[in-house]
């Protein structure tokens, strides 16, 4: 795939006014600047510095990486703002933070402390079983997870300026991320072959706004930047997602739950830049130490799956 995302004149979705930080050009623009890069989960300033030195194009500040959220159980919430601020002070690259699905007040707080992107994330415990956050009015841009095209387009219509696959966070098993990306790709190619009448029916079927579906069918890709996330643990995983057409990669537990975090982080960054070059991929895959142990997604109980959160 790897279809081009057209420049703003014909590519941006227009929901906001056209001046100031809450315009779509500015929100989607930052996502475009992150493309071809790796966004790493970090839990403190020290990890954030390791990520920055490894060449991360942004960091995601959170209290516990998804693997620990799984292990500990309980309610996972937005991180302590003082910890996020420490990370913001430690690095010069953009800092993202997670809010619970539907928890618009956590989003207001994250905006107030000045994070660069909010991830309305299924990795945290949902705060609303019905509604996602109405994201357009915020100045800070949002990234949201998806398992399929309908879910991606619903999030974009709510104002998400960037999409990622949900995958299955905290497992180190890339199989669900691959499934979600392949699902989105195949649904887009189906839509691209449809007449306007068929598209209307399809929009209803997948619960997507018609106009956004039409635009997606024309572009033959999502109308915003789309990253891989959920289970990426190796340089090869990252390059696999890039070759499937992702614009960049989130790595959560995969780095700081592995043997040699700094080396693995650098290797994944190189793999995302040189994703089409197997020789480079072979080089950077050497001697990385132990990968995170991982949980096999097919052995996982339904109730343990995070990707099912969000609607």
């Amino acid at each position: 795939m790897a279809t081009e995302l057209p420049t703003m004149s014909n590519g941006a979705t227009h929901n906001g006014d056209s001046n100031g930080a809450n315009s779509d050009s500015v929100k989607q623009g930052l996502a475009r600047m992150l493309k071809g890069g790796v966004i790493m989960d970090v839990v403190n300033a020290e990890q954030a510095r390791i990520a920055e030195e490894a060449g991360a194009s942004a960091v995601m500040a959170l209290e516990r990486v998804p693997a620990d959220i799984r292990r500990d159980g309980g309610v996972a919430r937005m991180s302590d703002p003082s910890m996020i601020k420490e990370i913001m002070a430690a690095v010069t690259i953009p800092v993202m933070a997670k809010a619970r699905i539907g928890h618009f007040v956590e989003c207001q707080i994250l905006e107030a402390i000045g994070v660069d992107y909010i991830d309305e994330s299924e990795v945290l415990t949902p705060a609303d079983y019905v509604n996602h956050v109405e994201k357009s009015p915020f100045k800070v841009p949002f990234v949201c997870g998806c398992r399929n095209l309908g879910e991606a387009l619903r999030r974009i219509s709510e104002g998400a300026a960037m999409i990622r696959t949900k995958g299955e966070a905290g497992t180190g098993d890339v199989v669900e991320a691959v499934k979600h990306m392949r699902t989105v790709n195949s649904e887009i190619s189906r839509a691209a072959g449809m007449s306007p009448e068929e598209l209307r029916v399809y929009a209803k079927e997948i619960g997507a706004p018609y106009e956004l579906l039409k635009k997606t069918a024309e572009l033959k890709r999502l109308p915003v930047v789309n990253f891989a996330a959920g289970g990426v643990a190796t340089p090869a995983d990252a390059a696999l997602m890039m070759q499937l057409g992702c614009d960049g990669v989130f790595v959560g537990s995969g780095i700081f739950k592995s043997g040699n975090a700094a080396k693995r982080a650098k290797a994944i960054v190189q793999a995302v830049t040189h994703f089409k070059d197997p020789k480079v991929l072979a080089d950077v895959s050497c001697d990385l130490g132990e990968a995170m142990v991982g949980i096999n997604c097919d052995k996982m109980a339904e109730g343990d799956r995070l990707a099912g959160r969000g609607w």
Partner: protein
Amino acid sequence: MTSPITIGVLALQGAFSEHIQLLRLASQLLNPTTTTPPITWTFLEVRTPVELAKCDALIIPGGESTTMSLVAERSGMLEPLREFVKVHRNPTWGTCAGLILLSESANRTKKGGQDLIGGLDVRVNRNHFGRQVESFEAELDLPFLSSITQKASSPTNNLQPTAVHPFHSVFIRAPVVEKILPHTTGVQVDEEGKDDTVVAPSKTAGEGVGRDVIGREVEVMARLPGRAKALSDSGVLAKDVGEEGDIIAVRQGNCFGTSFHPELTGDARIHVWWLGEVVQAVNKRKEAAAV
């Protein structure tokens, strides 16, 4: 007979695809009478020294400058890039992160600093306007576009040259040029002595490089006068940012830098203008080689 020109876009990280799209558009819009013989353009994503060696000119796109310089270093690209820009003096344009990398001096870099390519005798201030919530759009007056027709900004309009209409621009966590440095052939020594400032290593221009591209002073190509207007709700007044406004576009010899993102707008006028500059530079070089 056609004449081939290859333009590379550094594709280590960031918005390189957007530049390639606008280069394709710009090459179609470039007035054919200004280029005889007709030019066969090739636009290339550049990730390796071998790909860079094929290029007559280069764009360094927006993205994260720290990521790009680290990946460049680990991919064996940093020195070839310095050679390309500072020894061979090939035309190079940097936008946002690209402007940072082309500067001889930079502030507010990550702890431990970052590698720069250099080429422009300026000091940039990274993330000058603040974080993402301070990012904005602005209408810019760009006098250097006066020769570019309206058509480039809107392919449906006619070809008549008109008064320069404002260039809609996007500033994302943008840097500005906070100081024009005196031109020097070596490293920027005064800058090197400053805390929290990093400088680029010096390189001597190669033989056969035209004297017109060496020893030039930095030209200010554009300023952002009404930041107050752009930051409508932050209470900043024009006088707070100085009457002249921040420097957001500069040129020095073969190097051009903009702190905003023309690649995000769909307006190809700057790309058309820059391709024109590249054609002139390539032709001059050919003439010099023929003598």
